[in-house]
């Protein structure tokens, strides 16, 4: 078992490297990923090693190059597309959801699309309202597509390798705010993280907190703040299909569930988790399922506002504590503010 210390961005690079090396059908496609090594340097040097037919720079044409990746995948390659900021797929969504995710079905398994779309995502760096969203909701209600979210260097590496090997299209969201985070991780085959499996980050008995992506370290910090509470933390890793078994089992054992999502209150995956668990464990929960999310608002640029917009460790701890002590789902901060007004 090989371990090494890498930042999240380097782990992505390593995963891409390892897959390019082990499978000649893997190609990378995106804007400024070859000569320039990518805006986030997640493809740095790969064109030197693998050449310009494996690491392919494109014009600024998301529909064109995402669609080209779909066509390449349908004809035998395994393209990995870099969507520099995941918002950019808003000009090309059709190719992923309405084309790529339909080919298998519309050919009864004869034309398949082993495509990966990696996108940097999420808030926290002041990129403002058009460069800070998670946008997983665009992909989730779309059969044929898998969606995962990275939370550390290990799963940045391991989920990406799984995604590339997967015979169907997969979206991998990489929270931009984590790119610089460093960790000792396992690389090589043992470092591969399967799709569809959650990871229990920390065990505990009082409450289960299910989360993903950049909220994982936030929840870890929140748990550290709640010294009197034994918090079990589950990192979903894959949002579609999400690991219902792990979440239900954990919640059954703690009797309480808080779902912490980076994303707006309305329409996010935390609703799916809350709906499922509430129904599955009906009558067996000690408190209602609580959701901790961002408000229904565009993401502000200004530092203090963006910090407020995102769930903080303090806020997660406070909401969780209130759930436990009151046995009722606490109102989110903006609802409290509205009540005051």
């Amino acid at each position, binding site marked *: 078992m090989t371990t090494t210390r890498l930042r999240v961005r380097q782990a992505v690079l390593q995963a891409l490297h390892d897959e390019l090396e082990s499978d000649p059908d893997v190609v990378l496609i995106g804007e400024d990923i070859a000569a320039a090594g990518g805006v986030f340097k997640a493809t740095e040097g790969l064109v030197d090693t693998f050449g310009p037919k494996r690491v392919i720079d494109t014009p600024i044409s998301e529909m*064109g190059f995402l669609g080209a990746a779909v*066509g390449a995948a349908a004809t035998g390659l395994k393209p990995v597309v870099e969507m520099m900021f995941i918002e950019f797929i808003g000009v090309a969504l059709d190719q992923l959801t309405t084309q790529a995710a339909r080919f298998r079905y519309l050919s009864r398994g004869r034309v398949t699309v082993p495509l990966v779309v990696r996108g940097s995502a999420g808030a926290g760096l002041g990129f403002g309202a058009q460069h800070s969203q998670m946008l997983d909701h665009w992909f989730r209600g779309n059969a044929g597509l898998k969606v995962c979210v990275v939370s550390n260097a290990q799963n940045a590496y391991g989920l990406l390798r799984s995604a590339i090997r997967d015979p169907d299209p997969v979206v991998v969201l990489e929270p931009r705010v984590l790119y610089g985070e460093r960790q000792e991780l396992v690389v090589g085959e043992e470092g591969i993280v399967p799709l569809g499996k959650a990871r229990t980050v920390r065990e505990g008995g009082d409450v289960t907190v299910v989360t993903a992506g950049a909220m994982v370290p936030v929840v870890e910090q929140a748990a550290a703040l709640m010294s009197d509470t034994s918090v079990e933390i589950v990192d979903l890793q894959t949002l579609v299909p999400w690991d219902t078994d792990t979440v239900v089992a954990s919640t059954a054992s703690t009797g309480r569930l808080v779902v912490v999502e980076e994303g707006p209150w309305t329409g996010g995956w935390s609703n799916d988790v809350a709906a499922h668990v509430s129904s599955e464990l009906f009558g067996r929960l000690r408190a209602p399922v609580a959701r901790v999310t961002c408000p229904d608002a565009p993401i502000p640029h200004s530092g203090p506002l963006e910090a407020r917009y995102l769930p903080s460790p303090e806020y997660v701890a406070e909401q969780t504590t209130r759930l436990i002590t009151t046995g009722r789902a606490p109102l989110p901060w903006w609802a409290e503010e509205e009540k005051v007004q």
Partner: protein
Amino acid sequence: MSADDVSLKRRQALQDGPVQRLERMMEIRRVEESVLELFNDGYVRGSTHLAIGQEAVAVGLAAAARPTDMVACTYRGHGTALALGLPPEAVIGEICGRQVGCTDGLGGSMHLVEPDVGLLPTFAIVGAGIPVATGAALTAWVRGTDDAAVAVFGDGTANIGAFHESLNMAATMKLPVVFLCENNLYGEYSRIDRTTPVADIADRAAAYAMPGVVVDGQDVDAVTAAIGEALARARAGEGPTLVEAKTYRYSGHSRTDAGAYRPDGELDQWKQRDPIELGTARLLESGIATQEDVAALEASVAERVQAAVDIVLASPHPDETEILRHVLAPANR
């Protein structure tokens, strides 16, 4: 013989000569007419887009391309699918949602497919196939094969972003792809001059420093030659070509459209250059076939298509469990 063997054989038959190409045009016409009848008899749900009048483009494409050249085609794809090789029952069956259809009836009229003769799943979203064909060409470019790809789309589609992005990208990278515009003068109910300020779509090739060619889309030999040349350029690493075939659809846009927006006489004028009649006349003139040969061809085509219709109507709808198959790879469900 498996279904795809049949398709391949049918495809190869087009190489046998002009008679076979004429026959295929006749078959396409007859299938489209049957689809209309089946629709009127209540066997067809959803939408169907007929390509009567455009047979020469489909057959010219299929004659020029290899079965390994991947084709991204549109919802107006019955003719192209038949030309590329799909047997009539696979096409009609799909349109009727029957098991015998090429996607087991799960796709419908707008979603035909047969990868073994190069037909990618056809596209019901305007323009979506253009980047996908470009991607198929990318595969050939990456692998260094001499396969090429073809994107088939209409005149109206030349106004959508995917057209622009794909032509630019293919030209920049010199990808082996042919952009085949079937200019039938209308995008749905809008005549081209109401949506497009240039007369020839081929003129847009200049914006990508790419050759643009106009070809008579009613002349199967001319189409075959033009696409053949473009494919040869592509295989030689000289990059993409925009080929515009001037053609016409006799029917309206889709099943519900009578085409009343067309100027008086336009249809009749185009019918005077009917691709099947032109093809027939040429065979007769050159002595390759006699009137009797042609009549026999017509009869055998009619018979074959009728047989296909019978097969289709005897074929069941797919089983309900099919809904859940092929959403994801088996191990991945």
